[in-house]
């Protein structure tokens, strides 16, 4: 009814494998795309720079991680370290006079190389043991950054990002920073969608599901596990650079601590493992919900609806937030993406009720 399927007939394999074969999906996308493009006009500076911008960048980070954890099935609990490597590499490269475009590439490459070196552990271990191996990456990278003055700029130091231009556009105004982040997030999104419908993504899923069956059809499990780490860390590195230049504009090691890694894993899990739309929803949930809850409660307290202590007002959002995460996982273990999918399927067959799968 709302998503009409009648009359959609594919006569070519290309159109049958299109990213959004259903017109209704495309229409939603056009609206969202237009809103994203117009955001600097529609939103106030505060909302643009402290809500939309970080949401987009963390979505890109969650997408990078979901490629590894969801599609390739390799757990990674030290992804903040990957972002950190990218952020610090890009800053040092631009400071040395390298153009920003190349610095982004360098950030991605350095993250990819170091990330896949630690990912090599995945060739030997799985599951919880891989979690330990990636955790060690988190702490090692953090330790190295803090203790090598050449990288961190000295103990307790903050590195400011230099002014840069991207394709001749100076990245200074809020709008230009926002568009830079939007561009990167769109690129990562399209990459993930395309990986999923091409041979690379199928090979990743094959190794994730049954590596022996993957081997028997000619997929080299070692190669694709390493490639998963390489590509995911590359994306993470560039995202880290974008995060540093477009959002933080000054980096310290604490911005890439262990809790950030856990937040990223939470984004991926709450959103839905391996799901692209889940990364958007998960990042929004983890990032924006606490702010929303705090604002709601503060607002309620201000107009005397909640006669409770300030202490409690500060803590209630955290409790509700935790309860909501557990609630989502219990209600739908496949995350927000699955909830969206269920809704979509409901409208797909409305007014009938039954869908397969």
């Amino acid at each position, binding site marked *: 009814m709302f998503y009409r399927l009648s009359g959609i007939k594919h006569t070519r394999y290309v159109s049958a494998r299109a990213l959004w074969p259903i017109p209704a999906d495309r229409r939603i996308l056009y609206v969202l795309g237009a809103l994203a493009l117009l955001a600097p006009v529609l939103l106030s500076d505060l909302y643009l720079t402290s809500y939309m911008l970080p949401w987009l960048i963390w979505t890109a980070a969650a997408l990078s991680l979901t490629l590894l954890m969801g599609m390739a099935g390799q757990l990674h609990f030290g992804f903040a370290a990957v972002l950190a490597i990218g952020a610090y590499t890009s800053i040092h490269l631009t400071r040395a006079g390298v153009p920003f475009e190349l610095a982004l590439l360098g950030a991605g490459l350095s993250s990819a190389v170091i990330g896949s070196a630690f990912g090599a552990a995945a060739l030997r271990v799985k599951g919880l043991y891989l979690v330990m191996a990636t955790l060690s990456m988190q702490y090692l990278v953090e330790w190295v950054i803090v203790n090598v003055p050449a990288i961190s700029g000295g103990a307790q130091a903050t590195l400011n990002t230099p002014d840069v231009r991207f394709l001749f556009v100076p990245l200074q105004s809020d709008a230009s920073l926002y568009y830079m982040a939007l561009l990167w997030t769109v*690129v990562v999104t399209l990459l993930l969608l395309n990986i999923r419908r091409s041979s690379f993504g199928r090979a990743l899923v094959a190794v994730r599901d049954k590596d022996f069956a993957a081997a028997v059809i000619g997929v080299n499990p070692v190669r694709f596990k390493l490639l998963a780490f390489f590509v995911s860390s590359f994306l993470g590195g560039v995202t880290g650079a974008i995060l540093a230049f477009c959002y933080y504009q000054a980096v310290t090691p604490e911005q890439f601590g262990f809790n950030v890694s856990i937040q990223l894993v939470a984004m991926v899990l709450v959103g839905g493992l*391996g799901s692209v739309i889940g990364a958007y929803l998960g990042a929004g949930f983890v990032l924006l919900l606490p702010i929303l809850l705090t604002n709601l409660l503060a607002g309620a307290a201000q107009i005397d609806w909640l006669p409770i202590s300030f202490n409690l007002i500060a803590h209630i959002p955290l409790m509700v937030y935790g309860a909501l995460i557990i609630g989502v996982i219990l209600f739908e273990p496949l995350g927000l993406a699955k909830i969206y999918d269920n809704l979509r399927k409901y409208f797909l067959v409305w007014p009938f009720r039954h869908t397969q799968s």
Partner: protein
Amino acid sequence: MTQQQAAAGPDTVLECDGVCRWFGGLQALKGISLSVRQGEILGLVGPNGSGKTTLVNAITGFYPPQEGSIRFLGEPIQGLKPHRIARQGIARTFQNVALFKGLSVLDNILLGRHIFMRPSSLASLFYWWWAQREEVKHRLRVEEIIDLLQLEGVRDEPVEVIPLGLQKRVELARALCAEPRFLVLDEPMAGMNQEEKEYMVRFILDARDAMGVTMLLIEHHMDVVTAICNRAVVLNNGEKIAEGPTREAINDPAVVTAYIGKMQDAA
């Protein structure tokens, strides 16, 4: 050993010679020698635990033999990694269906084309200019196999929701998509009813005729083995106890003894 090689004619596709495999103190394969000829369906039968699947795992590289040699089209392949052996032209299906959950039937079958494709993340990034043409080219081949095995109706279903009989057929389709010279079918009819079995037999024969693929069939349904296998090899306790034209091989007294114990005079 050299005698065996001499005995194997030029039309030999696969040749095992004295293949041994131990698991700790257990010798699962005790010097198995057999050869598979071009275009035939060779039945591999034997009681449970007789080493059929171990032999297949030795051929496909999962448990490389500790002794003996395996030659495929004259080239030694023992000790190669499974994915390398796959690229040489050996495909197989598994006893308990090994499809990739979370992918559609079509994607599962497309994975069978993996060895002919050049997967890369850059090609995926520039999908419209780079990967798309390759995808379509291989889709055409996949659709031929889908036609051959009559899987059109379930093409877009997630693979875990279709019935077992169809899943086995999808697995066969995936194996055939690799255009193998030699195909190992490990109990393709396990857990099927009579009708599904008959379909499967038909599809196996169709696949052989259409693609000229040589097959090794492990199966417990003797009606199937006698119906479609040109020859049979019988294993028991890791040893070859009979070999020859199917009916003769499975009527061999040693085989009957292995399956149902010593024959009584009255019986």
